[in-house]
């Protein structure tokens, strides 16, 4: 099963197997990785599963469509950056095996 590395804001890394088709958010929550809250349960209706996508993966993952619900929610996140995504909107697929994401200072 492909793996994802989640790095907490304090630097602690968690390597987790995430099944194909499962969201990166769900991969963290189901494995008790701290730092992702996911208050809305994956509906793209809050911004509390916010991650920074590692530069090496940004091309494969891409950025949210301008004007999309995800872009709107991210624009209200406390510490958004150009590499920010909502992890509930990224589904695991083969080519993302080894993905690295970092968590922000807080999920707001």
């Amino acid at each position: 099963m492909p793996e994802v590395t989640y790095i907490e804001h304090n630097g602690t890394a968690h390597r987790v197997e995430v099944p194909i088709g499962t969201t990166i958010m769900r991969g963290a929550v189901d494995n008790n990785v701290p730092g992702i809250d996911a208050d809305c349960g994956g509906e793209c209706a809050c911004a509390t599963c916010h991650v920074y996508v590692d530069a090496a993966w940004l091309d494969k993952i891409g950025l949210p469509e301008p004007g999309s619900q995800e872009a709107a929610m991210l624009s209200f996140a406390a510490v958004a950056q150009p590499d920010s995504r909502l992890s509930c909107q990224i589904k695991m697929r083969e080519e993302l095996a080894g993905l690295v994401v970092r968590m922000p200072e807080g999920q707001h």
Partner: protein
Amino acid sequence: MDANVAFDPREDAYSKPLDQIDVSVPELYQNDIYQPYFERLRREDPVHFCEDSHFGPYWSVTRYKDIMAIAVNNQVFSSRWDLGGVRLEDQVHGYERPSFIQMDEPDHGERRKAVSPVVAPGNLARMEGLIRERTNMVLDGLPRGETFNWVKEVSIELTSRMLATLFDWPLEDRHRLMYWSDVTVCHVDTPDAPVHSEAERYAELQKMASAMKALWDERAASNAQRFDLISMMAHADATRNMDFRELLANCSLLIVGGNDTTRNSMSGGVWGFSKFPDEYRKLRENPDLVPSAVSEIVRWHTPVLHLRRTALEDFELGGKTIRKGDKVAMWFVSGNRDEDAIKDPHDLIVDRPRAREHISFGFGVHRCVGNRLAELQLRILWEEILNRDLEIEVMDKPKYLRSNLIHGIRELPVQIH
């Protein structure tokens, strides 16, 4: 509808024709009898039209999923003050309050971003020590073995201090902020409301805005970096030029948002644990459950009963057609008790799986900006209650606010052992 013992709300809720159900009646919340009406609506008519109410015709959205659908669809469901705003009770002509909660994009977002840094992670971390110090002081000063009002002595005491800090307002004058909070949220036809007409409400809020404007002018002229709401608005591009009316509106919004909801969750939690004492025992035995318990308390109490939207176009929901211009109430107090979304929703369960997925903070772009500050205050309160191993005995049921907007607890008599 009075609260005498002969009146059975369940019987009433299930016997009257569906179209006669009107959940906007403030007495339902004052008398704590609203649940059976929503239970019936969720089962039989989850997207419900009430033709005739004190607040005019309106739709009620009662299920979790449907509320979510409305909340995230800000293209169709508007918050605009000039269309009536975010309460079932319309903004009254001449007294409208154009706060950012009552705006759509991009106006809402630009203004919201001016104030949101006050509750960003770094600022919260800075405030934690202060909140704990005050919480300790308040808890240590409580009487033992005599009945007192938890709302006044704890909930209001803590949240009014927090609010003064957020505005960098003189601490000794914090009761004035609480008064203006009550002025903002009240229904003016409530007999013991602090004001009795829209004109009187506006006049009181003008006094508030004048006081805020004086602080604003001082802080706008200073280049010192400050982290209070007034300084942030006075320096941000989107808000620095706002007129007096918008200043009044935003300050009254931030006063209410900055205290009222947390205040009532502080009281609601104590009431909740008195009904579910085994859950309090569970929490005492495992204080690591405090964050989860806090989310659960915020769900179980649901401090904001509803928020309203106005449809900008026709929209199909649950087999009904909401028409352009219709008022739509998202009843968070019902969505949080939706059996299809939440298992055993009427129970307060401190280790509930996915406790964070309640609907009390709303969803979508208008989601509560202060939610993490609210959680922080509640977490510290319960941590310190547990640190002292306080046993809080509730002596009588709460007295609730007459409101269809705020799930307010005015009195909660308790004794501490």
